[in-house]
Structure formats: C-alpha cells, structure tokens
C-alpha cells in the first residue's frame, strides 16, 4: 500500500531537508573517502617500510682503512697503470717511425712513465738533421702527442761520433 507523503512544515526549523537518498549517498561517499584514505595511509606506511629496508640493505660498510689495505690498493693502482700502457701500439709506432727515417735512428731505450702517461725515448742518430727528421716524424704520429727533444749529445768516444738524443712524448688513449 502506498503511503502518504510526510508534511514538512515548521514555524522555526528549516523544512528543506536532504532526502534520505542524498544523506545515504553522502554517507557512502564519506565512508569511501575514509576507506580510501586508510588504504592510502597503509600503502604509504608499507612503502616507507620497504624504503627503510632497502636503504639498510644497500648501505655500504664503511670500515677504517688499514695500512695493509692501503698498500694493496696502491699496488693494485700501480699494476692497473702498468697494464694501461698501450705497449703494442707504442712499439709499432716507434718501429714505423724508424723505418720511415731510412733506419738512420737506433733506438736505445723506451721508458714509459704510466703515472704521467709519458714515454721517454733514447736513441742515436748520425747527425742532428736526422734527429730533427725523426722528431718531425713522431709529431705526425697518431699514438703520440707533444713529442719534444729534451737533449742531444755527440758521442766523442764513439769512432763514428753519433749523436745521442733523448725525446719525450705523451701517449694518446
């Protein structure tokens, strides 16, 4: 049986009331917002917990270096530097340079300085123009840069009086 509508009439209180469906919808929305907020808060807490766990796991162990470890590290660095010398390319380039200068250059020593990435070359030539030609050839090298003639000396004790020269250059990586 259909029921009559209520009469909303009052001399004091406002009679414009929200319908029950509106109130229910409002409550449902409020409940949903609270549930969502609670779930979000829970997820946020979980994320913080995981972040903290990850941070604790990834944190490096800082230990005070011992003299032994410092020594080992220095040795390892030295070995690494030695190994970083491009011997194959360097020797091939020097050989090529000697060949280009018609074998007027006799290589006596090649000393690398890995710390400074520097190579020192000791050689003997017949005269100074040959030394300059050799230097000019090295300046065109793709392996070396800044070749410099550091010293030259005529060997009077040698019957052919060759000129001993010392060069230095940096090697390219």
């Amino acid at each position, binding site marked *: *049986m*259909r*029921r*009559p*509508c*209520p*009469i*909303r*009439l*009052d*001399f*004091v*209180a406002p*009679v*414009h*009331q929200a319908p029950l469906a509106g109130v229910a919808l409002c409550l449902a929305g409020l409940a949903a917002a609270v549930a969502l907020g609670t779930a979000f808060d829970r997820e946020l807490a979980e994320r913080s917990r995981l972040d903290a766990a990850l941070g604790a796991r990834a944190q490096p162990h800082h230990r005070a270096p011992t003299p032994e470890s410092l020594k080992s590290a220095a040795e390892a660095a030295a070995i690494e530097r030695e190994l970083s010398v491009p011997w194959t390319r360097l020797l091939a380039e020097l050989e090529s340079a000697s060949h280009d200068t018609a074998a007027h250059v006799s290589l006596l020593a090649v000393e690398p300085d890995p710390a400074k990435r520097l190579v020192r070359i000791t050689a003997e030539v017949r005269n100074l123009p040959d030394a300059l030609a050799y230097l000019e050839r090295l300046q065109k090298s793709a392996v070396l840069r800044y070749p410099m003639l550091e010293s030259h000396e005529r060997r009077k004790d040698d019957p052919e009086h060759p000129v001993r020269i010392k060069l230095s250059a940096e090697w390219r990586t």
Partner: protein
Amino acid sequence: MSPLWRDEIAIYLAPRKIALVRRARGLKPRVVAATELAIPTGTVGDVGPLFARLADALSESTWQGAAARAVVGDAWVRYGIVPWPAATRLDAAGRLTHARYVLGDAYGDALAEWAVTLADTPPGRPYVACAMPADLRSGLEDTLSQARLTLVSLQPQLVVAFNSWRHRLPADDTWFVNLDDGSLSAVHLSNGAWDRIHVARLSPDWSVELDRVLALARLTRAAGALGRLFVDAPACMRRDAAASDGVEWLEEGHGDGAQAHALAVLQRMYA
C-alpha cells in the same frame, strides 16, 4: 550532557493543558522525564494562564538548559491548501504573500498579523499553509528563554499527528481526523497529499463534529469509492464513541483519558 547532542524538551501546548517530555539524546536516546499539567482557567483567547503555568513548570531544573520542540494545539492554528499559481513563477516571498491572501480569504482579516509558514512541497503542486497567532510564538520564546531553552521547532498538532500516523494511512481518498482539547482537525488525502482541511472547535458533545466529518466524507468522496476515516483521539473519546460506524481509531492501548494523550503525541513525534 554532550554539547553536540543537547537534551531536548518536547512541549505540547493546548488551551487547557501542557505536556512536557525531556529526552536525553546520544546513541541511545531515552525519555528521562515526562509530565502533563492542567490549566483549568485556560482559554483559546487568553494565553496568559498558559504561559504563566509553563513558566512555573520550567522553573524546575528538570526542564531547563536544552533545545525545545514545541507542538501547538490546533485550537490556535488555521490551515489552508494554496494552489500553485499556474502562470506565475513565485519566489519564497511571493508564495508566502499568496498564501496569506488565500488564508485571509478563508478566515478573514484577523489573520493579517498572524505568523504564516508553508510546507515544503515540490513545485507545481498545491501546498499547505499554516497560520498561528504571532504573539503565541513570541510569548513562547520569551518563556523558554527564561529557562535557558532554545526553541528549535514549532509545529502544529495536526502536522505532528499526521506524520506520526501516516504509516498507517492509505494514500488515496482517506480522511485523517485529530481530536483533542476542544478542537477537531480533519485532512483529506488524495494521491498521498493533502487536498482538503477542515478545522472546527469542538462542542461538549464532540461526536456531533465527528458526525459532520463523516457526512462530509460521504458527500465529497469520489464517485463509487468508499473513503476511509481514521481518527486519532484520546482514550476517553474512543470509549464514548466506540459504536461509531465507519471510523477507524488509530490510538491503541488503555490510557485513562485525555491526560495521557498529549504525552503520547510528544512521544510518537520521536518514534
């Protein structure tokens, strides 16, 4: 008492009686005090004895410091059904003016100074207008303020009784009659809404008025339909009129008369 859930005092005012119910609110609202007081010298035209008795009752701490909901007996109230104006769009003030005009046309110029309020009704449908003496409301507010009571609701008895009983009423071709303390109010329902209201002052032989309502129901009922008549009345009236034909009494129980009826009105309001 929580400041968010203040206790409520329900007050029933009729020319010759007052009823008070204090209700503690909260998760489990409950009635903590109830009383009904007679005003032997009270009349419809003189509200002085009524407010004097009310002020005396409210001097007790039991009835102080709460929100107040008042129900005014229909002896002081005039009702009207105001048609929705067909061609004019009216705002709230326009509808109130229109309602005053309709009520003045029905009851005369005496209502010019009365307080008028309208029922909340969807646009396009006739709405219920209600008038009561302005000094009744102001006198009530003055009396309540002395007891630190804030008036939050003021409704006529017919509206309160109808809303309490509407779950028992059919929506179509039904009369709902409310009887109490010298007044009879009858409202006719059609399509679930009020379409006629009849208010009368009861003679000592109140059954004469009830017979008039029955006659009115017979004369105005839809062709071929048998309208029903539901009556909300004090137990003493129900006993006297038990033999009335075609009347369905709404109030049940075995109260000892009119004294209990006003309290029942207030308590049903909260049901």
